């Protein structure tokens, strides 16, 4: 038997061993603890029903704030991300500039949205302003990357043709890159907004506004029936947003409609 086929046989065994050790270390191989967990979930679930409709108004206002955080965050992320993405596009700029901008975007991306929320709570104080900026910076990191990848996917021949008319880089971006990329940019923007609604709903955990603040409070006060109300409202809103953006997509992206 040669070395590579021996390796191929050993690899699955190693993987199983690694999984067993990891499961033990995170405490999921402890039968007592697992049993307690199942019972707790039972208690927790029964305490959730029926949902407490008395908090509906509070929860509705909070989810509205969450949506605003997501909206402002997405717009901030896109407004900063679009120019940065252009500066990171190798068909427009040289390796030093694009490399530098990409590095900045990558650093921004390594910090999770919640951590950005904490940073802005420290900087600006508690409230939805901090949450919006937190979501905004997080979106900037992702949209920046998604956007420059879209720009670099634009048909090279179109860029060569438009460059050939003797235009500047700004004109090339305006008349070739942006219109060619518009559909994909919009699709990613909608996706980001959907994602941000979810991210914004836990911003309240760190005091950065929105429905998460109430969810955390209900958990700490053991008001599981009120927690269920806020979860259900969030669920309904998330589904509605997904549905709405699917409609928008069909309205504004006729080419994807024609393909489907």
């Amino acid at each position, binding site marked *: 038997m040669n070395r590579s086929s021996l390796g191929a046989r050993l690899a699955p065994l190693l993987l199983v061993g690694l999984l067993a050790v990891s499961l033990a270390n995170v405490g999921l191989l402890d039968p007592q603890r697992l049993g307690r967990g199942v019972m707790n979930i039972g208690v927790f679930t029964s305490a959730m029903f029926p949902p407490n409709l008395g908090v509906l108004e509070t929860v509705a206002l909070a989810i509205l704030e969450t949506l605003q955080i997501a909206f402002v965050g997405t717009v901030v992320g896109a407004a900063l991300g679009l120019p940065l993405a252009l500066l990171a596009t190798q*068909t427009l700029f040289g390796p030093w500039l694009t490399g530098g901008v990409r590095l900045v975007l990558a650093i921004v991306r390594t910090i999770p949205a919640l951590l950005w929320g904490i940073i802005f709570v420290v900087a600006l104080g508690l409230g939805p302003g901090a949450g919006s900026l937190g979501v905004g910076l997080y979106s900037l990191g992702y949209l920046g990357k998604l956007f420059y990848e879209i720009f670099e996917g634009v048909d090279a*021949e*179109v860029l*060569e043709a438009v460059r*050939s*008319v003797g235009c500047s880089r700004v*004109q090339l971006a*305006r008349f070739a890159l942006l219109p060619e990329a518009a559909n994909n940019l919009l699709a990613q923007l909608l996706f980001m907004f959907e994602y941000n609604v979810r991210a914004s709903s836990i911003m309240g955990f760190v005091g950065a506004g929105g429905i998460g603040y109430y969810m955390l409070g209900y958990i700490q006060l053991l008001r599981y029936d009120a927690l269920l109300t806020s979860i259900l409202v969030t669920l309904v809103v998330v589904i509605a947003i997904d549905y709405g953006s699917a409609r928008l997509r069909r309205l504004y992206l006729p080419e994807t409609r024609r393909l489907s």
Partner: protein
Amino acid sequence: MAEPRASGQDGPVSDQGSLAVETRDLWFSFSGGGPVLRGVDLDAARGQVTVVLGASGSGKTTLLKLLKGLLAPQRGSIRVLGRTTSPGGRGIRLDAAVAYIPQNLGLVRNLTVLENTLTGALGRMGALPALLMAFPPEWIKEATGFLERLGIAHKLEEKVYNLSGGERQRVAIARALMQRPQLLLADEFVSQLDPVTTVSIMDSVRETVVTGLTVIMTTHELDVVARYADHVAVLRDGQKVLDLPAAEVNPRLLSQVIKV
């Protein structure tokens, strides 16, 4: 309309006065590849239609891109319209007097017929008006005029992705004319068109040549050579293997030279 080939029958190229294009010992290879062009000398007289023939992969597209300044040769010199071209980096504006229609036309699909045509004027437009798409009315008139002559003015506001191949070809020509070019480089110019459309498009190009435009085009259609060429050059594996006035070539000779 002038009689096709009229100028081609006048005699040797040197009698035509100055050259629009003059390359000497042109060598080019893509990074990591072998030479694609090997010592090409090409002369194109002003006001003539020069057709470059050659099998697939013989280097026709590469030659046109070098003439446009989209690629830089490793060795040899290129003079276009009396100037020695030195292809610059991404930030350099290319010469608007040299129009380039790539193999797949390079139109911006999400812009309208009129917008694509106006793109040809970007070279003489300032940054701010261009960003706002504020084209002077006389340019819009000029563009509409070209589109009328090419028989596509009824689709001014149509997005290019809704057009047929022949309609797109007309828009690409209109964009090129909008550059007020002295030299037109057209790659695989009429390859995707039916014979009737080919004739009508070549006739309109020929009409423009009468007004002093120089054309260098590549094609696989030997019919086009017989009807419209003044001069013919044949590439094989990156070398020029034939260079004659169109009057002196016949289809049998051409297919022999191209295929071997």
